[in-house]
């Protein structure tokens, strides 16, 4: 999803996630009406990666603790011990494909990781529960060009491997054109352009720029 500042992209995303409540209409996730449900309830079906790498992870907690929180979106009140030796190997196997050396830093507090590492971890955490909908809120905007590319590649891999329905907001038109199979352009709170499949493949950056200027 693309659009100018103030077009309503983030408002839509926040309404879906539950941070903002809808003034009218209904919101259904995987057949469940969640219009008036809190964020935590919606997390059974959706996950979100924030723009700010600090938002998606708990800095004071370790990498392993963050993964534990993300692994199951239910049972947060459980009185069972959360740390099990058997999980270490599983967590390492999850972290290894990120190629960031995180598998050796399971007990490191997340606040000591770099922005790129934190965002990669956020992404992994968001997809760990196999959500029916993954929301990406300009999740590479705060990263340097190289790391940003790395996280985008990682996103592509994870989304394709797990066949996740994903909604991504971006300001980078090249990313909007390269990734995904549907492109929505929002302006003044309305959908201005909605192309998918082959039609999207043939879309060019110039076409989008013309639309933006209108």
């Amino acid at each position, binding site marked *: 999803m693309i659009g100018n500042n103030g077009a309503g992209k983030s408002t839509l995303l926040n309404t879906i*996630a*539950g*941070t903002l409540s809808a003034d009218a209409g209904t919101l259904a996730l995987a057949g469940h009406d969640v219009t008036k449900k*809190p*964020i*935590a309830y919606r*997390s*059974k079906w959706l*996950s*979100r990666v*924030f723009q700010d790498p*600090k*938002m*998606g*992870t*708990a*800095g*004071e*907690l370790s990498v392993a*603790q963050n993964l*534990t*929180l*993300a692994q*199951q*979106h*239910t*049972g*947060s*009140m*459980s*009185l*069972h*011990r*959360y*740390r099990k030796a058997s999980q270490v190997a599983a967590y390492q196997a999850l972290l290894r494909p990120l190629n960031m050396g995180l598998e050796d830093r399971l007990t490191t*507090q997340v*606040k000591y990781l770099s922005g790129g590492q934190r965002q990669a971890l956020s992404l992994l*955490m968001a997809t760990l529960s196999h959500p029916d909908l993954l929301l990406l809120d300009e999740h590479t905007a705060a990263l340097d060009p190289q790391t940003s590319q790395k996280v985008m590649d990682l996103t592509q891999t994870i989304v394709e491997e797990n066949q996740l329905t994903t909604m991504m907001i971006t300001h980078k038109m090249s990313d909007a054109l390269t990734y995904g199979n549907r492109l929505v352009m929002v302006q003044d709170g309305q959908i201005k352009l909605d192309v998918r499949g082959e039609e999207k493949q043939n879309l060019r950056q110039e076409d989008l720029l013309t639309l933006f200027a209108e």
Partner: protein
Amino acid sequence: MLITSIGQGLLWAPLAIGVFITFRILDIPDLTTEGSFPLGAAVTVSAMLSGQSAVTASLLGFLAGCIAGWVTGVLDTKLHMPSLLAGILTMTGLYSVNMHIMGKSNVPLLTQKVLTNYLPQGWSIDLQTIVVGAIVTGVVVAVLIWLFKTRLGLSLMATGNNPAMSAANGIYTDRMVIIGYMVSNGCIALSGALIAQSNGYADIGMGIGTIVIGLASVLVGEIFLRGRQIWLRLSAMVLGAIIYRFLLTVAMGLGFPVDDLKILSAGILVIVICLPILQNKYRTRQQLNHYLKQIGADEHEASNRSLNRQTSPEGLLSRDSK
């Protein structure tokens, strides 16, 4: 003097632990303390006067504190009040509640058996206090260590650290905050119950300044014992409570009148807040000098000075590094 401080410190330790839970784990400054501490004392003394055993009465005091915490928690999360205001409202309301429970502003215990009376009477008062304090504080610490190793405990820590991320991961943060308030104020009321039994009376004014005592104990403890493990952090609170008592005893030994203790408490708090900041500043400068010496450059002296000025040490009360 040291022995007395250890005993008294152990009785005050649940207060420090309670303040630690809201202040450090949930990242909330909770003023309910000033009301829940005398609430614990009032409920316990009243229950004992009406024939309950000291153990039952102390547990009732703990539960009363939990209820007070629940009220603040609901005001904070469900009515969306700023947490400082929520605490002030509960604290103010509790004054009347405590007066109703006690009937008058000071209620002495008569011949009732307090917790220390269950121990052999041959032991000295100090030893009895230490044993009772150690048992109660030990149980509180053990239960909390267990709690923070469960998924619920992890959810509590996550909520205090990053509420947005916690909610996005399926944690009902409002519930977590309320649970935190309840456990915290339960501990604080338990401390009030112990102090009332140790003093032999409950007084309406005994809560004044407890938040300062609690915060000072937390900060003193963290100066002496640092670490990430929960058992270490909780032990630091117990140590902090004991050292804080010792500091007050020393001050009283120097001839300060009892009325001056509150300003002394406030003074100690100011010092323990400033001390780690200065400590950090000193360490940063040491490291920088060490580093510059290593690269062996005197000409960096000038840049060294300007760098020093820019280095702002991490504040103790703020968590700038989320």
